[in-house]
């Protein structure tokens, strides 16, 4: 089964879910900020503690509520996003992601390789498989780091979605990154996603703080141009993205230097 008509969409619409997060000071211009650890609705997530190898996720306290369809497929059917408090600027961009895996236990001062054997991702890549196409990995900060200047020599050892191992991801992390900072690893040429992770090498000490590797599938981005503005997008406008069973949805947004943002988003779902 699948929803293939407007009538099917109408029949399959489900009650919306709401996200209302407390204002937070963002890391800086053009850097994603995860709302995962912010107080509000849903409640703040607790920083993960599964160890370096991490945990494949089918649910996690603090995620945006998601209910599997009794039959057929699940879809994101609409999105209404707004930002209510912003101390510097009045616009931003948001990104909705499915959180497939995360870890903990990264030694923040170890500059050599830290081995990781990630478990198989949940079957929620862009094709509903475990291959990892369209799955990307970021470093997420849950407790502010202490590095005095940006770090550009951190690398990720990964296997790509075609099953080729020994691939290297690179990243540029900001200095003294605030909690919530989320930066994606850049992939090697030709790679379309990450299937598994074999290790991380920080290269330079982050001095203090807590960071996690997080594997996500970006699902939808959305934009606001004015303070207090909301922009409602329907199923056609958002490309009617498919959501797989046990999706662990959360959001991040692009910050402006020193700005403070409060997120307020309504998600519409459909089953069929």
């Amino acid at each position, binding site marked *: 089964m*699948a*929803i*293939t*008509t*407007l009538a099917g*969409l109408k029949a399959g619409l489900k009650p919306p879910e709401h996200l209302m997060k407390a204002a937070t000071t963002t890391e800086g*211009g*053009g850097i994603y900020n995860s709302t995962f650890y912010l107080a509000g609705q849903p409640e703040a997530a607790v920083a993960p503690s599964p160890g370096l190898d991490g945990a494949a996720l089918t649910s996690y306290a603090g995620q945006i509520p998601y209910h599997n369809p009794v039959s057929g497929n699940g879809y994101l059917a609409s999105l209404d996003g707004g930002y209510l408090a912003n101390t510097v*600027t009045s*616009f*931003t*961009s948001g*990104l909705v992601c499915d959180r497939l895996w995360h870890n903990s236990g990264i030694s923040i001062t170890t500059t050599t390789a830290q081995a990781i054997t990630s478990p198989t991702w949940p079957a929620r890549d*862009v*094709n509903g498989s475990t291959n990892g*196409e*369209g799955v*990307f990995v970021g470093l997420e900060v849950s407790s502010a780091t202490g590095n005095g200047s940006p770090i550009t020599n951190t690398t990720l050892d990964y296997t790509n979605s075609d099953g080729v191992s020994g691939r290297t991801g*690179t990243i*540029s992390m900001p200095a003294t990154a605030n909690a919530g900072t989320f930066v*994606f690893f*850049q*992939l*090697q*040429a*030709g*790679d*379309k996603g990450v299937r598994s992770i074999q290790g991380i090498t920080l290269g330079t000490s982050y001095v203090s703080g807590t960071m996690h590797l997080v594997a996500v599938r*970006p*699902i*939808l*981005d*959305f*934009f*606001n*141009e004015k303070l207090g503005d909301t922009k409602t*997008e329907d*199923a*056609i*406008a*958002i*490309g*009617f*993205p*498919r959501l797989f069973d046990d999706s662990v949805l959360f959001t991040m947004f*692009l*910050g*402006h230097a020193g700005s403070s943002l409060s997120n307020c988003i309504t998600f519409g779902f459909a089953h069929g």
Partner: protein
Amino acid sequence: MAITTLDGLLAGFQPSNFFEKIGSTMEAIGVLHSLLYTAGIPGAGVAPTSAIGGDALTSYAGQLPYANPAAGNGYLGRLSVSGTAAGRLLLVDRLWHNASITPTTTTAQTVNSATFPARDANGSTDGEGVLVGLEVSTATSNGAPITNTTMSYTNSGNTASRTATIASFPATAVAGTFVPFRLAAGDTGVRSIQSLTLGTSYGTGVIHLVAFRVLADLHVSLSNVGDAMDAFRLGLPQTYDNTVPTLLWQPTGTAAVTLRGLTTYAHG
């Protein structure tokens, strides 16, 4: 088969493809910049190494993801982007590119391009809507702008010996600089390329000819806030099998820009 109804569009949406291109330094305000060589997601592409006759492209490492429909047609159903600076994004299908241009030769260099893939505006090899740009993969060292570079081509109406010009190719162009040729009056596309005459030495550096078709463009009016175009605003442009989607950015300044967005296709 084709998508001809809203139902068909709804049923045909495919998973979105995320992209993030990190911190590419621009040549100048308004000068297009190819993001093929920029690190990020997907990873940076490697500069072509083909002969001067070039390669018709059906895939290329570093392109944005594209999957052929199992049946029916492909369409661009949504495009979004935000940037750390204002500018204009072009999503293009990269049809052909070459290498082996001698940057110091000022006389004609014979190209005789391979037949372009059947991905012009009408899904043919005629070249309707196909344009050609000069792309830099290693910075050039010409000390002043160059205004006498020309290209001999056959237009999409199959008229040979047409001459395209570049009004001004910038001095010491950074890697990524992308300058489209201006076609002869009345021409609506390029079917093939016969030769390139640089006119003036580009010094060192590596340049390529690239044939492309614009699929969509999208403007970013404010930093860190973007825009999305749905199927209707885009005009539901058809994408043909083996499309090689790549990005061009028209900047409003020279500062390094990071771009993020999604492409969404529909099949049916």
